[in-house]
């Protein structure tokens, strides 16, 4: 399954704003391994995405999210279910 382009773009933009400057970010970027996001930063990112898309992301989904693409796909699934 490919993530919706609009969702992927918005997710990437938001992650760029939280990531170290000049960091190259693409669909395969790993939030922890590549960007060194700690739990607080991941929560901040989620809160902003939740507000933007008017959804709630259950914390139980977090272990399945490693990359930018994983995140965009999960958001897409939640949006589609609503």
């Amino acid at each position, binding site marked *: 399954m490919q993530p919706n382009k609009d969702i992927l773009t918005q997710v990437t933009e938001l992650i760029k704003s939280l990531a170290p400057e000049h960091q190259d970010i693409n669909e395969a970027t790993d939030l922890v391994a590549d960007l060194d996001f*700690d739990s607080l930063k991941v929560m901040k990112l989620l809160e902003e995405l939740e507000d933007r898309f008017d959804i709630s992301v259950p*914390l139980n989904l977090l272990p399945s999210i490693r990359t930018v693409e994983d995140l965009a796909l999960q958001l897409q699934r939640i949006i589609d279910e*609503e």
Partner: protein
Amino acid sequence: MAIFDKFKQLAATRRTLAQCGLASVNVVMEKLLSPTEAIVNGRRTILAGTNNYLGLTFDPGCIDAACRALHESGTGTTGSRAANGTYSGHVALEKELADFFDCRHAIVFSTGYVANLGMIATLVGPGDAVVIDADCHASIYDGCTLSRADIIRFRHNDPADLDKRLRRLGDRAANALVIVEGLYSMLGDRAPLAEIVTVKKRYGAYLMVDEAHSLGVLGDHGRGLAEETGVAREVDFIIGTFSKSLGAIGGYCASNHPELDLIRFANRPYLFTASPSPSVIASTRQALATLRARPELRLRLWENAHHLYHRLQDLGLTLGPEISPIVAIRMNSPEETVRQWCALLERGVYVNLVLPPASPDGGALLRCSMSAGHTPEQVDQIADIFAALQEPGNAPGPMV
């Protein structure tokens, strides 16, 4: 990856802390002198980080009750409540807790952690949703994880965000369990409980309030924030611990829902943990009686809280958002926090060291908790030592 590889990051953090002067993250209380003093590193030390809010750990009545129970019923129950571990003391304490909270039912657990783990994991399950304040205690997060329900976090103390989260759940909101705390353990701030009750009623959700830090601290009778706010009847489940104001160890849940007694038999952490020992139950019962009989302890606690808060505020320190027996000092960096914490200990004051990610918003804290057992002189001593460390010549410098 070897099973121990995941601890490399912890080892690195520990090395960094050691470079800041922290020899050990574990303080050893070599000898307890009173609820508010101990020998630490061979030095007489004021304890200002123990959650011993009413100072009852050395209460003669509690100690006598525990000793009597030891002699009469032995050192332990050697079994769970569902097997051989229910003694008359456990049943009596449950009745006394129900009476104290003016609820129909109460269950006693072996720890506060087990109370949260057991109640949350039993009340909700796969397909349900549990909506928790972001700053909730680890035991609440762990209970949610064990439940396998959908865990939704709302922004700390933000009823509007809670409203949004429940709205997004649609029909599932009526079956959702909302969880907040009475007093939050790190910054000592209260939940806006009246507003939270309004929101949960709008959606028909259930509400659990963890009064771990507010039992004996808030309310005219010391029942906690639900009593202080006047919404106790709207709270479905009150959870708490015996390990703070009651000076022992254990946990409880009180509720008016008749199903609470059934929940007992589906509650795996309750069913598969040995029950509290008779001496713990006996001292807890006595402490609860003392809490009810001596409201002056709560008044003294609050006098101490106000006194320390104002003294530290006058020093220009950045404190938690409201006055409470938890007085948290926001620090500029983890390194500075460790240095100050070590310096306080060297000068005979023990407080709690809180470093990210354990702190609520990523900052570092020095966390004090006041006790009714502190004398005004001890509170002044604590504040004086903080003041001395603010002097330019005395400020603990970098150790690396």
